[in-house]
């Protein structure tokens, strides 16, 4: 393929890959790659914040009847740990990949709405700051991320804590919905010629499914938190039983969002794993079609299982039976995916790079989480498990063993594309071993704790119930995870500047993003490629034998890569990659400062509602609200008439 002819020669990362530099260029950027990198570092930052919050929790529980933190602070910490990890760390970290990788995978020069993309990031940025502010000032939400009514009503919770929950998540949710619409349009409309839906890279497929879930599920959540906001601020009674409201309505709405949310966090990972495993097994994905349909089915069934979080609520045997069975059904497409990954590895030639190790660990740990998940679907015995540490174990095998391990696999895999340099494999393997030991030490004992009667969300426990040593183990595991996460962060920082130079396609992977330099030039593709195959670099490279993965295997074990050329040994001064989009006659949208100003206006509108009652008293900050609304209106107007777009 002429269009992918640049694959052969690895490029040194250009000193200044973008035409502009400096802080201002990052604030005004609409380049999907830069926004991806902003998402990447922000979410890593919040991953550390969420980790610190977890350390507060685990340190409080290291011994029985500990007084490390107060009951209220503990409640803030477990709430904030979940909110930070879900909304500020994991979702945005997947968004970093959506931003950076999807346009490259589909052969596009940017997303469909570049400024909207910038707006999504800045809205998330300000929403994140708001929740972080709540945490450091000890005013964080203290009712759990599920925030079951009526404890969220002003009567039981007069402080600003729940307001931060309502308004912070409103802002972060807005960011997700905007990004979701953007990516659905991008994926459906901006694929390179010839890339039919069933030729899309599997990761892009999974992103498409995820975005549909985000747009629909976040809408439900928006309704729920709007009602809660009205209850708290304007005296409605949606969820207040004392005044005729129904707290169970909240639970239904919350889990109608909350369960698809679980799939929002895991389906992108399915996509990452499905890119990593074939690449390092040097075999195509086993059963691509079935993998796609299984994920669509998981996303669809994900809407019909929400009440399995509510088996103890007393919905009656008919509802319990329905939701038990629908939940069990989800195990079937999930099982298909597990076995298809195993089928991909079968007969392969598996290279255990750090990325692949995390991918394999994902399969194993996610299987454990899936098994305990099926145990939860057994409604009667779930009555013993629900609200205990058994569920804490389950969600951490799904979110940590699933989402986080998969994200690590994705980071080690795509890092070279983002930064032009490889992450250190030795540090990576230390990270992998430490993570595996740490997570199993931290989370496996929780299965027992739950079955031995420890309820979750308890800030203390007595010493005579047999829970002591398992809690100690769990806390030590958390400390180990903190330690190796430090190794990971060090690896990211160091490798971004000093790692071995990666070249275009260090892993010999098959999809379009590996056909262009690392990091890609600002315009991504000089010419939009024409796609004839699902794996363009494996099946369309005219210089290679058909049907053989791109790149001959280097017999020399010192080769860093399985790609065509040994990497890190030559640096081509590459004139081409230094040519700007303008030189090449490619039109790119100019930078814009309206996204960040609009986002700030949104922050003002919502923030003014919170600052009404920071100290418990109601201050009327109407002028802040008005300023925010004006800012929003002006920015939208200016945005619409901005030249060059």
């Amino acid at each position, binding site marked *: 393929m002429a269009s992918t002819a640049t694959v052969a020669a690895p490029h040194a990362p250009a000193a200044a890959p973008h035409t502009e530099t400096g802080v201002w260029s990052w604030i005004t950027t609409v380049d999907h790659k830069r926004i991806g990198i902003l998402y990447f570092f922000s979410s890593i930052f919040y991953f550390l914040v969420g980790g610190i919050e977890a350390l507060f929790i685990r340190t409080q529980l290291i011994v029985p009847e500990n007084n490390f933190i107060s009951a209220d602070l503990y*409640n803030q910490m477990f709430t904030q740990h979940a909110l930070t990890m879900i909304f500020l760390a994991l979702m945005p970290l997947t968004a970093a990949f959506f931003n950076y990788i999807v346009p490259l995978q589909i052969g596009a020069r940017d997303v469909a709405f570049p400024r909207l993309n910038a707006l999504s990031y800045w809205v998330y940025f300000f929403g994140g700051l708001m929740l972080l502010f709540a945490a450091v000032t000890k005013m964080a939400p203290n009712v759990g991320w599920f925030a*079951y009514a009526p*404890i969220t009503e002003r009567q*039981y919770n007069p402080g600003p804590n729940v307001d931060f929950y309502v308004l912070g998540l409103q802002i972060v949710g807005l960011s997700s919905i905007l990004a979701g619409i953007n990516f659905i349009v991008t994926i459906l409309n901006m694929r390179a010629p010839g890339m039919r839906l069933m030729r899309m890279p599997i990761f892009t497929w999974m992103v498409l499914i995820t975005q549909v879930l985000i747009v629909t599920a976040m809408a439900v959540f928006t309704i729920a938190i709007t009602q809660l906001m009205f209850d708290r601020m304007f005296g409605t009674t949606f969820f207040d*039983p004392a005044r005729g409201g129904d*707290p169970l309505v909240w639970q239904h709405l919350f889990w109608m969002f909350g369960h698809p949310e679980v799939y929002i966090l895991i389906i992108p990972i399915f996509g990452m794993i499905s890119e990593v495993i074939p690449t390092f097994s040097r*075999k*195509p994905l086993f*059963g691509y079609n079935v993998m796609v349909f299984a994920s669509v089915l998981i996303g669809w069934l994900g809407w019909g299982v929400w009440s399995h979080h509510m088996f*103890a609520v*007393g919905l*009656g045997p008919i509802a*319990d*039976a329905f939701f*038990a*069975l629908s939940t*069990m059904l989800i195990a*079937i497409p999930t*099982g*298909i995916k597990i*076995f*298809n990954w*195993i089928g991909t590895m*079968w*007969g*392969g*030639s*598996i290279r*255990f790079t750090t990325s692949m*190790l995390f991918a394999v660990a994902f*399969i*194993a740990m996610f299987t454990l989480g899936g*098994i305990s998940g099926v145990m939860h679907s*057994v409604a*009667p*015995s779930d009555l*013993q*498990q*629900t*609200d205990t540490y058994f569920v804490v174990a389950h969600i951490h095998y799904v979110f940590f063993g699933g989402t986080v391990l998969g994200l690590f696999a994705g980071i080690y895999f795509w890092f070279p594309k983002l930064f032009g340099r490889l992450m250190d*494999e030795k540090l990576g393997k230390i990270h992998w*071993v430490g993570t595996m*030991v740490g997570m*199993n030490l931290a989370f496996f004992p929780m299965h027992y704790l739950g079955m*031995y*009667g*420890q*309820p979750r*969300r308890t*800030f*203390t*426990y007595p010493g*005579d*119930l*047999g829970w002591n040593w398992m809690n100690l183990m769990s806390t030590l595991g958390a400390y180990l995870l903190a330690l190796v996460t430090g190794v990971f962060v060090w690896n990211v920082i160091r490798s971004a500047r000093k790692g071995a130079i990666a070249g275009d396609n260090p892993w010999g992977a098959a999809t379009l993003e590996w056909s262009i330099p690392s990091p890609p030039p600002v315009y991504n593709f000089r010419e939009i490629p024409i796609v004839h195959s699902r794996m363009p670099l494996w099946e369309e490279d005219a210089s290679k034998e058909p049907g053989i993965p791109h790149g001959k*295997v280097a*017999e020399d074990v*010192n*080769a860093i*890569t399985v790609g065509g050329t040994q990497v890190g040994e030559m640096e081509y001064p590459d004139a081409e990659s230094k040519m700007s989009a303008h030189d090449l006659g490619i039109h790119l949208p100019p930078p814009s400062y309206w996204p960040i100003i609009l986002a700030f206006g949104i922050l003002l509108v919502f923030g003014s509602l919170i600052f009404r009652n920071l100290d418990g008293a109601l201050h009327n900050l109407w002028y802040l609200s008005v300023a925010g609304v004006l800012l929003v209106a002006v920015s939208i107007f200016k945005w619409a008439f901005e030249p060059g777009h």
Partner: protein
Amino acid sequence: MKSRAKSSGYSPWKPAFGLALLTLLAGCGEDHLQTYPQTTFAPASDFARELDWLFKYTLVLGVLVGLFVFGLLGYIMWRFRYQPGNPEPEQVHGNARLELLWTFIPALILAAIAVPTVRSIFNTQREAPANALIVEVRGYQWWWEFRYAVNGGRDTVVTANEVHVAVGTPVQLRMTSGDVLHSFWVPQMGGKRDVIPNKVNTINFTPEEPGVYLGQCAEFCGDSHALMKMRLVAHEGDGFQRWLQNESEPAPAPRDSAVMLGKQLVTKGACAGCHTLRYGAAKDSATLGRTGPNLTHFGRRRTLAAGILENNAENLSKWLKNPPEVKPGALMPNLNLKDEEIRYIVAYLQTLQ
């Protein structure tokens, strides 16, 4: 590619998993209950036994599936690891027969789980039998109230944090909340059920073994959620009837002066604003205060402050000295009682047998 495949074929979680399973299976029996007094693995009612069986049944199936997947994964990691000189693998895109196979086999396993699940869902939510003992349960931040109808339903016995039942007599708990959500959970008696304002939820079970069982709120309900505990006492023979008879008596009259002073402090002081002490017949439950637990037979209870402290003079003094220090967020304020006042009150409360 610096990785040595042979070091990667070893999966550290495998032995951990096996060891864990072994501990689980070895962990049942008398010793188990002594080590883990709040365990779910020592069922003492029909309800709990059914759940226990279902759990172990799915656990065995789950462990078999897990071992199969882990074994397969381990084998593949070893067998198909990269070795220098390997030929490029054959490019296989899928296999419809295999994929159908691993659709149907999991479906069969799930069907094997689904059938007993649905049967148990209906089994455990049947109507209570006509002879069932009805106990009304109310959850409050952060304590439990239990009510029994006596004298053919004309009178009501009200007690707190200690629910009494009789071995062999079916029990139905009818539960609702006075404030936020709670969840009733006594693991050895069976699964939990949420306690929700404006809704009456029920649990049915028949206690099978006498004893004092630990329980605790399982739905997050605020600051002292961790401290909202209870005891369930299952009586043998006529023990339950004797207990109920005693509870329906009025509070005993004071016999000495210290106790008398204590009574005055309780009934004339701030205590009465929230706590009820019944001096007449059970139907005469005209109350002074209903915010806090009914104290009529407080002295007989095993614990205080919702099951977190043993009920003795020392703990009671500690509690009266500053309740929110023992239980963060407790609605009972620090009344700044003098030490001697506390002594009198303790003396009186202990006589409430």
